[in-house]
């Protein structure tokens, strides 16, 4: 383990992106993710890359759109209010089927909100963020190592499926330091015959576009995109099961909330309560199958989240309302504590899981 370095989550994202072959970063300062921009500003000029502090989040995401159109790996990062500004661009990226990586280090909202950690952009991320029918691949790291790993994974999946991958972290993940090992080799580049790189007068012109004024055609484009999404749901789901083998109660949580929950689970088991955790690593595609399977075994679920009840809806849908789903949450920049989660586990187990 001694070969590992201590890094902040935000820095791990930035370095992993560079190692994954990203040479273009566009962003606008906002707490608590500014370390990503600062890191890129320092590193990119030294490796022939581009760092540009855009005039706005809106401009930044459209610069991403420009580079993505050429087929190069490109990213931006922001925190909640800034992601709302980028939402228009996210929709256009989806409409034009462009690969890109977007990082959201969430803070409490709505509005300007606060700057402390939150998970309240869950709906925004898992439902796409902007207008129209589309998804982003949403990756939820729960450690600094995963901040790096999910960044690399995000670039690969974005290229593979021609869509945006979002790393959905929170202020804690961005700011904390943990040992991290960055042994990353960029994956083999994928052919991108659709990219605009100049025709060299050797081929028909390529058009990057999301406009389609003929409803019959636009319908088919949407259907085709959702066929691709179906493949992603079949092949790219990632999750972690923790102490689920004999679990009678199942916590569902991601990111920092999952880490807090693990402490509570260890404590609960000392007190004889059989509780486990299913931690979605991909929030979209959501791990529906393992949750549905768990629904036949456990007495109840509990969604632990830093939002007013967003993740819980996906748990209810995934488990087809077979078992009660309880909520344990804090919001506004407050973080659930192991004690709070433990108390709720006890309360649920005393009632046999009933709501």
């Amino acid at each position, binding site marked *: 383990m001694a070969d590992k370095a201590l890094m902040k989550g935000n820095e791990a994202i930035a370095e992993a992106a560079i190692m994954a072959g990203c040479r273009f970063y566009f962003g606008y300062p906002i707490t608590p993710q500014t370390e990503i921009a600062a890191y890129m500003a320092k590193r990119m000029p030294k490796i022939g890359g581009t760092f540009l502090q855009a005039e706005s989040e809106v401009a930044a995401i459209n610069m991403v759109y420009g580079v993505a159109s050429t087929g190069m790996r490109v990213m931006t990062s922001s925190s909640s209010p800034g992601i709302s500004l980028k939402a228009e661009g996210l929709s256009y990226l989806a409409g034009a089927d462009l690969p890109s990586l977007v990082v959201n280090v969430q803070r409490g909202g709505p509005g300007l909100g606060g700057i402390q950690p939150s998970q309240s952009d869950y709906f925004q991320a898992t439902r796409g963020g902007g207008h129209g029918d589309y998804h982003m691949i949403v990756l939820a790291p729960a450690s600094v190592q995963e901040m790096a790993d999910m960044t690399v994974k995000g670039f690969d999946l974005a290229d593979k499926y021609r869509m945006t991958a979002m790393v959905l972290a929170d202020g804690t993940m961005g700011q904390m330091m943990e040992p991290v090992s960055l042994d990353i080799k960029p994956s083999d580049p994928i052919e991108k015959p659709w990219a605009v790189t100049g*025709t060299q007068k050797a081929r028909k012109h390529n*058009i990057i*576009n999301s406009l389609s004024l003929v409803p019959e055609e636009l319908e088919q484009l949407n259907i085709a995109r959702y066929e691709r999404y179906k493949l992603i749901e079949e092949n790219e789901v990632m999750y972690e099961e923790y102490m689920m083998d004999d679990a009678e109660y199942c916590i569902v949580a991601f990111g920092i909330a999952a880490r807090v929950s693990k402490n509570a689970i260890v404590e609960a088991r000392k007190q004889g309560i059989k509780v486990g955790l299913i931690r979605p690593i991909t929030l979209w595609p959501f791990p529906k199958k393992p949750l549905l399977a768990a629904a036949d075994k456990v007495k109840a679920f509990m969604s632990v989240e830093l939002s007013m009840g967003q993740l819980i809806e996906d748990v209810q849908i995934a488990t087809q309302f077979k078992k009660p789903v309880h909520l344990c949450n804090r919001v506004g920049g407050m973080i659930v504590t192991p004690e709070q989660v433990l108390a709720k586990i006890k309360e649920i187990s005393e009632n046999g899981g009933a709501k």
Partner: protein
Amino acid sequence: MVVFKKPEALADVPLHYCPGCTHGIVHRLVAEVIDELGIEGKTIGVAPVGCSVMAYNYFNCDMVEASHGRAPAVATGLKRANPEGHVVFTYQGDGDLASIGMAETVHSAARNENITIIFINNAIYGMTGGQMAPTSLPGQVTQTSPYGRDVKACGYPVKICEMLSELEGPEYLERVAVNNVANVRKAKKAIKKAFENQLNNKGFSLVEVISTCPTNWGMTPQKALEWVDEKMIPYYPLGVYKDRSAESEEK
């Protein structure tokens, strides 16, 4: 003998523009310049949102359709992705460039981004059916200024070339018109220079083209061309507003 033919950089498809609209002329000028400079194979155009949204179908070079107002940001990405290999131009109307996209316009100019911008100023929103534009003249009647543009309520028109000329960033700013043969010739010269500047790595070049919108101005094409002379040009004087290289040569 061929006396008149379509430029190679212009696709052989029917344009959707209204009769008498000058978009077609400006498209042709841009295509002629691309042909003459022999850069079609490395040019990437950025289409806006507005009447020229489908410009991506009309040019034979690679094209990108941007969201409303963001063409200069998209162009920034395209250019930075391959500064030597790409020639990048945007083609934007007045709503796109001077209203919703003002921030992108000003900041790409301030950065002296090495791109070429063709700015169509016809003082109206065409695609949505004739609403007031940031460049609509005082007193001009539009669907959303039915009693004439009241400067007390909605302010004054934005003069882009004058405004940007105050910045240190941009290389070249010129306002031209396409309402008569002489002006068309001057417009082509300006557009060519705006592309040459990019090829010579001189930076941000913007050509504002005073254009017509007979349909939404409620005029015949002929009357619209006259209105450019009578009303538009007096408010938006033609000429070079900034030419840094020429200025430094003089000094």
